């Protein structure tokens, strides 16, 4: 089988104009900094839609990406840690759509799991309702939340084997696992790269079939 190992530059060249991009991580934790940095340095792509829990912090390259004018739309749950995202929202330079964090995770999962949507009680009675179908079940109202998918996902893991199986430790799992299931092309930035068979099948967090490219860093 063809090796999935590649460079950050080569991997992110898969991102095309107008693509939707999922970027894993929760603030600095489990964030694929090297991949985003490589993307910032390729300035050929624009009109991007970014799906990220929080669009990171000011210290990360995602701040530069958001600032670059190449992003037309952002889906997130919290943007207080990246003032540039807030600025784009206020000025309307980009469309910024906010979702409850659990709803965002569930939308991405639905995208990867072939579901048409999920019903959540979260957001009922708030502006999160706007433009969404409400469905009543047993006299309780739910919001119909639709699936989210991406062309490319940039995720971060600790270890990969040759098959692409990933181990993600601690609080760094966050959005990296669901995002790996919901994109056409998945790029994983990893700290360690081992031979096939060296990861215990019981400890795999992302099956290798989801991972298209592996970039070893550090």
């Amino acid at each position, binding site marked *: 089988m063809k090796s999935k190992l590649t460079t950050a530059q080569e991997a992110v060249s898969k991102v095309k104009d107008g693509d939707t991009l999922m970027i894993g991580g*929760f*603030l*600095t*934790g*489990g964030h694929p900094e090297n991949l985003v940095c490589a993307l910032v340095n390729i300035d050929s792509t624009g009109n991007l839609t970014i799906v990220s*829990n*929080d669009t990171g*912090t000011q210290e990360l390259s995602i701040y530069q990406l958001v600032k670059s004018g190449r992003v037309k739309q952002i889906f*997130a*749950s*919290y*943007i*207080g*840690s990246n003032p540039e995202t*807030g600025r784009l*929202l*206020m000025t309307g330079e980009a469309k910024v759509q*906010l979702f*409850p*964090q*659990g*709803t965002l*995770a*569930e939308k*991405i*999962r639905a995208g990867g799991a072939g579901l048409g949507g999920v019903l*959540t*009680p*979260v*957001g*009922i*009675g*708030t*502006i*999160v309702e706007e433009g969404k179908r409400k469905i009543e079940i047993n006299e309780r109202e739910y919001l119909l939340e639709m699936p989210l998918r991406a062309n490319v996902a940039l995720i971060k893991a*600790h270890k990969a084997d040759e098959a692409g199986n990933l181990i*993600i*430790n*601690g*609080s*760094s*799992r*966050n*959005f*990296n*696992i*669901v995002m790996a299931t919901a994109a056409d092309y998945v790029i994983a930035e990893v700290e360690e790269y081992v031979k096939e068979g060296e990861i215990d099948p019981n400890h795999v*967090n992302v099956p290798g079939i989801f991972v298209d490219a592996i970039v070893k860093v550090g």
Partner: protein
Amino acid sequence: MNSREFIASRIAKELKDGDVVNLGIGMPTMVANYIPEDVHIMLQAENGILGVGPKAAQGEERLDCIDAGGNYVTTVKGACFFDSSFSFCIIRGGHVDITVLGALEVDEEGNVANWMIPGKKVPGMGGAMDLVVGAKKVILAMEHVSKDGTPKILKKCKLPLTAVNVVKTIVTDMAVIEVVPGKGLVLKEIAPGLSVEDVQRATEAHLTILPDLKVIEV
């Protein structure tokens, strides 16, 4: 003890042995400092930890062990990690006993606003909407009035809501108030040195006074 410490220490008394608790960023996080030694709770961080321990000592910070505020933390014995999707199954599914959050406004129907000020500040709701809808008990940790002295406990919230009919207990520097469905706000305890009139004057909503009104002990 300043008013933030006063509020946090009073809220700590609401926690029972075995409770699963999520503490919001800021004042709610301080609650952890006041939990009696014989009360063992499991702190949840919505980015993927059950069993959050004290902050990490300097030099022992691990990028893979941060809480939802981005702080480097430790874990207690019996802790576990999971991804965002599972984390919000725990939260939305009713498996968190108590969530403690800050608030900009709360009203007599138990509605709460804590995530945006239109035209001013839109950090995003993060996990707050899921938490207040999903947790078995919602406790607000807040100053009784805003910096300019205007009430924050209202007949009806004016800011965009986080959720409707979810708040159970409001703990402020002046009082402990319960939201009782069909009955509105019931004053349970007042801060030492204050009169019922002091509290009512600082509150827009009507407070029901019970005969067994107590003084807050911390």
